[in-house]
């Protein structure tokens, strides 16, 4: 479904409004075509792409990092609930090679993600297998569900 956007060329709104409109249109396209489909039109979001879910009072973050090993990844927990992922992928040098096609992305990337609750930084585990990074972030004690005893007089 395409929503109609009113466009007044004489008053495009503030810069922030215009960026919000653009982001909304990009998100709509990403939802419709999927991330890979949108790439066919030259649209790319922040990298690396992340999948995040919650299970058993633990947050799970997954990222696709082909060609990397754990030593190429740095993880930081800041402010209790913020995860920072820093990665670098160096391009492959081929002696006397002529590139006929270049689609893969190389370079340094940083992703910052706010998790819905504080995590216990001491208990975070991460592993990188077959190009997939999986991080387990157990919720901090203070963020876990608490059963409240109701006292009766």
């Amino acid at each position: 479904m395409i929503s109609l956007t009113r466009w007044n060329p004489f008053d495009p709104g503030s810069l922030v409004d215009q960026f919000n409109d653009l982001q909304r249109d990009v998100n709509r396209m990403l939802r419709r075509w999927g991330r890979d489909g949108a790439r066919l039109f030259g649209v790319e979001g922040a990298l690396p792409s992340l999948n995040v879910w919650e299970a058993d009072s633990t947050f799970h973050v997954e990222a696709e990092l082909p060609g990397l090993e754990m030593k190429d990844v740095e993880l930081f927990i800041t402010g209790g609930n913020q995860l920072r992922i820093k990665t670098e992928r160096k391009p492959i040098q081929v002696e006397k090679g002529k590139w006929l096609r270049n689609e893969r992305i190389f370079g340094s990337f940083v992703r910052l993600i706010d998790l819905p609750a504080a995590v216990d930084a001491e208990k975070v585990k991460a592993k990188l297998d077959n190009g997939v990074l999986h991080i387990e972030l157990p919720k901090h004690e203070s963020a876990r569900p608490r059963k409240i005893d109701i006292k009766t007089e």
Partner: protein
Amino acid sequence: MADITQVPDRQNLDVNEQAPRFIPRVDICDTGSELLMFADLPGVRPEDIDLRYENGELTLKGKVQPRHQGKAMYRQEYQIGDFERTFELHESIDSRRINAECKDGVLKVHLPKASAFQPVQIKVQG
């Protein structure tokens, strides 16, 4: 950025298909004696990769099991799904010597050129 029309490809996509699709990113290099293809296939096991060369075309396909069914996703920025891409290689390849390895989610395929088509320096007699 290389001109991608040097190695045309097609997706073999069925636009009516609902299943999520993964489009692996591929780099192709010509070293003179062989074509080298690199494909990013994170999370794909070597035994799930179907790689075949026929009539000058290299097809890369595979099935990838969904990993996040039934989970409460807080954020989902990429899909996990099957893939299929076919590349038209204009070089003549010695198909018996094609070999491939997969490490850290990267598939590396060596496609040696048929020797008749390798560049040859010809000595000119005086």
